[in-house]
């Protein structure tokens, strides 16, 4: 313990003596790049140097906590037992707690009260050190059974969620009550929230031509939710209750939405059904159906979303249907019920919670979707696109963006809470440990025919869509000029040789490299943070665990658009000035995708018997050793899942990062959306299919590399938590 404390204390001194306290300035360590002279030249110097030389005396206070911790280190018990030893312990605990609390408190007050440049590496390191010192103090007091690692982990996870989820959300709430000059206008908030542009019912009442954007969003989400659930159910029934022979293909198809950037389906739909689309062409020449722009608007967006989200609802419903014990249906049959009556009175009621769950998941997905409405919406606005235009458009009205984001957030949050509260535990369909013999009753023929028809339609459309994506990139201009060409790939991924050797001349390379780099850095961080959080939630009980769970849950429910807006609002100015850096992209990915890690971790951890941890503890291993030697090896499937999903989601994500990209740090999806907006569909499609190919290769590589170790009976299948993990794409 003493050795660890010594290390952290040394790190604390390094943070104030060596590392740059602010961003910018001329300090030659790590984060230089700033004006060489002038008033801000010293910004990058360590806190103590700034305090002594630059007339920023308040920074000198940063040493007090470190001195307190030093005192704590010296108060180390000399007597091991007895009253003296206990008094020493108490003194040490008091010093360390004071050091941690004081340091963090000072940092908070200092950074909010004093106008200064954005905090740098030194301040970040200082915060972590204070947190760990405080954790030592609290652990000595018996918190979390005296386990420093647990106390520090809780502090770290909680702190980072507060800073990177809580703080932006609070900022967005605050900026909703400010006007654009930062003045507080509480009075205006009500007007803004009830604006007729948001809640107007003109289209229904006949007083206007359009409805408020909130109604648009809800209507779209409702329609998509119902239709997606229906389609998902059709597939689930076919997969579970018929002799359908291509079940493996169904499973495979369910991966598609994971590796398809959300707007790509929208792009393909434009190319198929747009005014100059392939299908439109065909209909117009064969049947003389006039070309129109019907696809731009709700029909197109809904179609794209149904195609995209059906696999998710399929996965949910397959699980639920498999959980329905066949014996119940057999019992119904022996009571002389026909297949239709059995289906209606036994099967359907049993899967009703599952249906509601699938509906809510698709509902939330649709609310949060940004890419499809952006490329297909036309004049049909939804909240997520409205937010985008409020920020990037001519109006540049961040207050309005904040109001819209709050409304969207309240929708997703309500749906999410409904899903958790009502459906979290209420499932009659159970998979018991004992083998449940029996055959599920055959589907009534009407249901079977309907399901097959729906499934066939979906399949046909999907094949068309993915065919378009694959082929479209190789055609000059799909629909207009179907000459085979590599021009799009060349524009995007050209490599030329010039006087300085080879260079990546293609226009897509920059964004591709940034995307891959940022995703690769975010991947292990996301997995680590998510799994650590899952471990704390599943395995530890501590004061405030409920609140902790709620906070992590909150980050599940925040749509990407809201994250994006809140990040630019929160991190545009000191003390945390991160916009325009690559770091903010990484942070956005980590905290957006962390729920994936949490879910994978929770699913796997709850299958690992808790007595394994306890056995390790009673054998003298502390929780960190236990985590490393017992839990982590068993968590391997979850680690793979978390890594894969965080990587893939980082690559495909568009809604959050479109606000955060810059010319220097552009991302693939943002680039593609930009191309699509100016009508360069060929390039957009070509780039999209390249992304999909990259992700397929990455998935296969990870599967091959990691493989799975057999643990006999305990082998846990890779928990494909797609259904849950895509919730806020």
């Amino acid at each position, binding site marked *: 313990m003493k050795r660890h404390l010594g290390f952290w204390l040394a790190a604390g001194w390094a943070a104030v003596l060596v590392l740059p306290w602010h961003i910018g300035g001329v300090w030659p360590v790590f984060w230089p790049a700033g004006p060489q002279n002038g008033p801000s030249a010293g910004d990058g110097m360590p806190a103590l140097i700034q305090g002594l030389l630059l007339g920023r005396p308040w920074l000198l206070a940063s040493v007090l906590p470190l001195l307190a911790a030093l005192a704590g280190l010296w108060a180390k018990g000399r007597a091991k*037992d*007895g*009253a003296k030893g206990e008094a020493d312990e108490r003194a040490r605990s008091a010093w360390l707690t004071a050091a941690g609390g004081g340091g963090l408190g000072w940092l908070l007050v200092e950074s909010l009260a004093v106008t200064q440049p954005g905090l740098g590496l030194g301040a970040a390191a200082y915060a972590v050190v204070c947190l760990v010192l405080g954790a030592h103090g609290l652990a000595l007091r*018996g918190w979390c*059974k*005296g*386990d420093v690692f647990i106390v520090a982990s809780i502090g770290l996870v909680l702190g980072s969620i507060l800073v990177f989820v809580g703080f932006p959300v609070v900022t967005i709430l605050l900026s909703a009550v400010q006007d654009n000059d930062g003045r507080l206008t509480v009075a205006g908030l009500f007007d803004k929230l009830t604006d007729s542009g948001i809640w107007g019912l003109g289209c229904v009442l006949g007083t206007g031509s359009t409805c408020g954007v909130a109604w648009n969003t809800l209507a779209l989400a409702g329609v998509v939710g119902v239709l997606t659930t229906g389609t998902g159910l059709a597939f689930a029934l076919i997969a579970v209750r018929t002799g359908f022979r291509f079940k493996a293909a169904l499973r495979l198809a369910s991966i598609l939405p994971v590796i398809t950037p959300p707007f790509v389906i929208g792009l393909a739909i434009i190319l198929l059904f747009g005014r100059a689309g392939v299908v439109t062409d065909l209909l117009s020449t064969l049947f003389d159906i006039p070309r129109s722009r019907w696809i731009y608007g709700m029909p197109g967006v809904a179609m794209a979303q149904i195609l995209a989200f059906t696999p998710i609802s399929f996965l949910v419903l397959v699980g639920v249907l498999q959980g329905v014990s066949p014996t119940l249906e057999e019992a119904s049959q022996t009571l002389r019920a026909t297949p239709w009556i059995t289906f209606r009175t036994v099967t359907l009621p049993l899967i009703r919670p599952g249906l509601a769950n699938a509906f809510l998941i698709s509902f939330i997905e649709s609310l949060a979707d940004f890419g499809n409405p952006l490329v297909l919406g036309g004049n049909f606005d939804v909240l997520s696109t409205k937010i985008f235009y409020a920020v990037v458009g001519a109006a540049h009205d961040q207050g309005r963006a904040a109001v819209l984001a709050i409304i969207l957030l309240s929708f997703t949050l309500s749906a999410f809470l409904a899903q958790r509260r009502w459906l979290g535990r209420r499932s009659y369909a159970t998979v018991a440990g004992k083998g449940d013999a029996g055959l599920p009753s055959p589907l009534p023929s009407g249901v079977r025919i309907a399901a097959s028809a729906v499934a066939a339609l979906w399949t046909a459309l999907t094949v068309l869509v993915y065919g378009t994506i694959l082929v479209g990139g190789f055609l000059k201009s799909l629909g207009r000029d179907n000459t085979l060409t590599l021009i799009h790939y060349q524009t995007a991924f050209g490599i030329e040789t010039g006087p300085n050797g080879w260079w990546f001349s293609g226009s897509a390379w920059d964004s591709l490299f940034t995307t891959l780099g940022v995703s690769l850095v975010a991947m292990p961080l996301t997995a680590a943070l998510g799994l650590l959080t899952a471990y704390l939630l599943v395995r530890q009980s501590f004061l405030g665990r409920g609140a902790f769970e709620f906070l992590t849950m909150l980050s599940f429910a925040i749509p990407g658009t809201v994250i994006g807006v809140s990040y630019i609002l929160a991190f545009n100015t000191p003390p945390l000035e991160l916009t325009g850096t690559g770091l903010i992209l990484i942070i956005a990915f980590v905290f957006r995708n962390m729920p994936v890690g949490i879910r994978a971790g929770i699913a796997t951890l709850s299958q690992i*018997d808790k*007595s*394994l941890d*306890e*056995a*390790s*503890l*009673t*054998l*003298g*291993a*502390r*929780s960190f*050793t236990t985590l490393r*030697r*017992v839990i982590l*090896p*068993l968590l391997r499937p979850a680690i793979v899942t978390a890594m894969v999903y965080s990587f893939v989601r980082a690559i495909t994500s568009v809604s959050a990062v479109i606000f955060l990209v810059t010319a220097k740090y552009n991302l693939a999806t943002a680039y593609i959306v930009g191309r699509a907006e100016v009508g360069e569909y060929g390039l957009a499609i070509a780039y999209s299919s390249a992304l999909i190919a990259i992700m397929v290769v990455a998935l296969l590589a990870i599967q091959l590399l990691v493989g799975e*170790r057999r*643990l*006999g*009976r*305990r082998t846990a299948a890779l928990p494909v938590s797609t259904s849950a993990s895509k919730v806020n794409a």
Partner: protein
Amino acid sequence: MTHIRTLSPGTTTLEPAPAAARARPAVEFRSVVKRYGAFTAVHELNFSIEAGTLVTLLGPSGCGKTTTLRMIAGLEQASSGTILIGGENVTARSAAERDVSMVFQSYALFPHMTILDNVAYGLTVGGMAKRAALEAARDKLALVGLAGLEGRLPSELSGGQQQRVAVARAIVLEPRVLLFDEPLSNLDAKMRRQVREDIRQLQQSLKLTVVYVTHDQEEALAVSDRIIVMAGGRIAQDGTPRDLYQRPASRFIADFIGDANIVPALLEGRDGALGRVRVGMATLTLPHRDLADGPVELAVRPNAIRLTSDQDPSDGLLGRVHFAAYLGDHMEYEVAVALGGREVMLFARTPDVDAPLSVGDAVCVGFAPRGVTVVPP
């Protein structure tokens, strides 16, 4: 309750003279309480366990045995009170810092490690060199009779073998106290007898201090030096198996250990240590156990009941056979008798299988003096 140490109020730290170290109890609970929210799982528990003995915590489901055991291990924190292990106050210490090992009901073998690595785990995380740890682990595996299986994964062993690995893993650290939570519950009836004998032998040959949790009274009687019977989070009785069986402190104990019939009776007078007890028309001479004259209850073991078909009630009660079952080497009967104005069912076991009684027979119920005790009502 002879083992409970009463402490003068205000004694919070134990400062024993070094010479007394040997006499220190291996485990001591002082007013230990465990609450889960508003629910109190364990009330003010006081007991101490001598080194080198096997003590069983016995009681019906939900009485707090596992909770007590886990508080010894440090897997649960006591809500209040003091826990000492080997005289040291460990109340605030985590499980990793206590000199205690545990054999879990589910065995909790690490599925991703071989048997050998499992057993060596405690040594290696404690900082022992890998080679020495594996050597010690191999010894312990041989001790529990598993030499040759070192390279297998836990999933490749039978339940009984897994159990022995769990024991080896726990004793390899030579803990001051070894804890067992229902170690036999995953084994079949035959294996149970075998394994419990093995555990007892191991405990005696290595002079281990063992705390053993079970809800099976026969198992407890068979293995224990001492049994602490718990009910509703409190100690109901604490004593040797013989104490518990022959001198139950309450009708709960009498019923829980050895399925005694509880029969209302009258203590009518005494003569030295013996008292006259009237039950129905019969009068028995039994140790009065310092109970006051007047109504008492009798705990009658099933095999202390004599059933005869003669109709002379002078040495017993009249009854009627209500149920009879043949179990190979003995008969079991339920006999309805009228006592104190209501009908009482007595459960009897007799070795006579050749001339069984049948349902409906009128019988006379007598009592053998051994196997009958008075208990406080």
